[in-house]
């Protein structure tokens, strides 16, 4: 009588008929005309589309930076479309990790101070959050750079600090908005290899890019045009991340990116 069922993949993101309108004076502009999207745990979804297609707006909604005008958004089973700004701040803090094109690190803070920032707003004590931040930075191969400021680091290093910051609070999803947009192709590939490894370890990733090469690192590509979903298919010939040395040599700083990831990272005080 026992029937072994394949475990139903857990839905992390569920958008149902999501519309977004912006009020411009008296007229309103509808940017998203009703999006239905489901992302399950462990997926690596790439959102593509020309500029003006609404992909940034969609990212902002998924990231709880913006609210839907119409429709429902369920994040890890929780309806976030009706939450107050304060509740949304908590959702962003606990369930979402952001990686931006321009890294968006605070220039006055060191790498570890940047990385621990989400935990600061979660009310975690200085010692505990510092330990976690150093742990994440070590996994990113930045153990020797924890006390450097963004201005003292290369673009690739800054983006790795940003990834450490996004991961430090154990989010449900990682949202990456053109994460390689400001990097040359070698360093970009290195960042992508980090994201792929994270996804392999179970992290759900949603990434926006306009670069078809970069998009091929994902598992599924969703295409957006004029505020509507116009395509949704799995990636047929997925790119494999570059060899660890290849990525590292481009950076020339920390040759143990993937190794650090694999080891699970002992905090190495700098």
């Amino acid at each position: 009588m026992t029937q072994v069922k394949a475990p139903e993949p857990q839905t992390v993101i569920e958008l149902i008929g999501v519309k977004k309108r912006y009020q411009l004076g008296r007229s309103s502009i509808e940017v998203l005309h009703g999006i239905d999207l489901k992302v399950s745990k462990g997926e690596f979804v790439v959102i593509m589309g020309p500029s003006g297609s609404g992909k940034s707006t969609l990212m902002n909604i998924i990231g709880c930076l913006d609210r839907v005008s119409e429709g429902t958004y369920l994040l890890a089973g929780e309806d976030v479309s009706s939450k107050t700004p304060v509740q949304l701040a908590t959702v962003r803090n606990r369930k979402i990790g952001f990686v931006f094109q321009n890294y968006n690190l605070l220039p006055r803070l060191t790498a570890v101070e940047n990385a621990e920032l989400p935990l600061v707003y979660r009310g975690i004590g200085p010692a505990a959050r510092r330990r976690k931040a150093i742990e994440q930075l070590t996994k990113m191969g930045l153990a020797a750079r924890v006390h450097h400021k963004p201005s003292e680091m290369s673009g690739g290093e800054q983006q790795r600090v940003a990834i450490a910051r996004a991961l430090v609070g154990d989010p449900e999803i990682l949202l990456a908005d053109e994460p390689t947009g400001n990097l040359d192709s070698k360093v970009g590939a290195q960042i992508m290899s980090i994201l792929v490894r994270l996804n392999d370890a179970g992290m759900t990733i949603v990434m926006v890019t306009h670069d078809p090469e970069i998009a091929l690192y994902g598992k599924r590509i969703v295409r957006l045009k004029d505020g509507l979903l116009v395509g949704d298919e799995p990636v047929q010939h997925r790119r494999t991340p570059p060899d660890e040395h290849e990525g590292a040599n481009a950076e020339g700083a920390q040759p143990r990116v993937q190794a650090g990831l694999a080891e699970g990272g002992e905090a190495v005080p700098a």
Partner: protein
Amino acid sequence: MNMREYVAVAWRALIGNKMRAFLTMLGVIIGVGCVIGLVSVGEGTRAQVSAQIQGLGSDLVMIMPAPGRGIRLKIEDAEDLKQRAPELSRVMPTSSFSMQVKYGTQTKDTTVQAVTQDFPDLRNFYPERGKFFTAEDVAARRKVCLIGKTVADELFGNTNPVGKDIVIMGQSFTVLGVMESKGTALGTNPDDTVLVPITTGMQLTRSRYIQSITAQIKPGYDAKATTDHITAIFEQKFRRSDQVRVFSQEELLNTVNQVTRTMSIMLGAIAGISLLVGGIGIMNIMLVSVTERTREIGIRKAIGARERDIMTQFLIESVILSAGGGLLGILLGMGLSQILARVAGWPSVVTVGSVLMAVGFSVAVGVFFGIYPASKAARQDPIAALRYE
């Protein structure tokens, strides 16, 4: 995020731009410094004047002819008053003149006060050496006197003046004693005086009149009721009102306190305006800072900062600016009051009250002028803020 961390974050933001932080604080520093400095001068003056008045005895009543009425007082008026006002314990007729006194070849311009044997108890001012003259000396118009410390020092130097004769208006007076030192206050020197019996003094100036009457109220009697009674007595005597002015030391004390307090408040208000200007400076810089840090606000919001967190962060920054300015201003004000006391000789007292007030006001200024920039920061749209270059 607890308060200590908010303060740490705000502190780092300010340290990152030290010059700007200092210049922003300067307005508050100067404002608070002025409040403390000026109020301390006002307070010092008030304390000194009231101490002086109290030193004279706070239960005293002065009676003098109202100016321009043609009324003059005689010794008999004082005696008569003592009969009719049982609430007065001592009544003393007085006159005073500016005169030159001589001892040998030494001369000294001083104030000669013609008083009675009641003077020491009335004024709380006793001889340090020798004895005060008696009722008998007054009645007999004896040419005796007591000299103040300043006069003693200038005329006699190290010689003991008691028993020596000094010359006042060509007449020789025997020095019975030297008064204790009261010290200079408010530009007047109570030690620069010669005391003679009222009768002798009137004879010396060939006057039939006295200048004023000083009386002491018995313990337990109300100053206001007593002065009213005295006024009524003189009204009856001269058959007209407003012929004499009667005022008690207590009233004088109140008046002086009121005047100096008004002065303190005015000085404080002027200084307060500069504090206000300092506050506007803080608001200005905080608004600039919010605009400059739009991206930072966006990042913080994206990773989970609530509006309250951003608001608190910026508010604490402006409070640190104003409170820091306030503390430095207190130091400046204390220095200022010391300088005024030393250089200009103004009495100055830095009171706990004025320090607390300055701190309170500067924190209030920080909160008041910080709220608008902080709420502007807190209300930034994170999406727009993240895109801000």
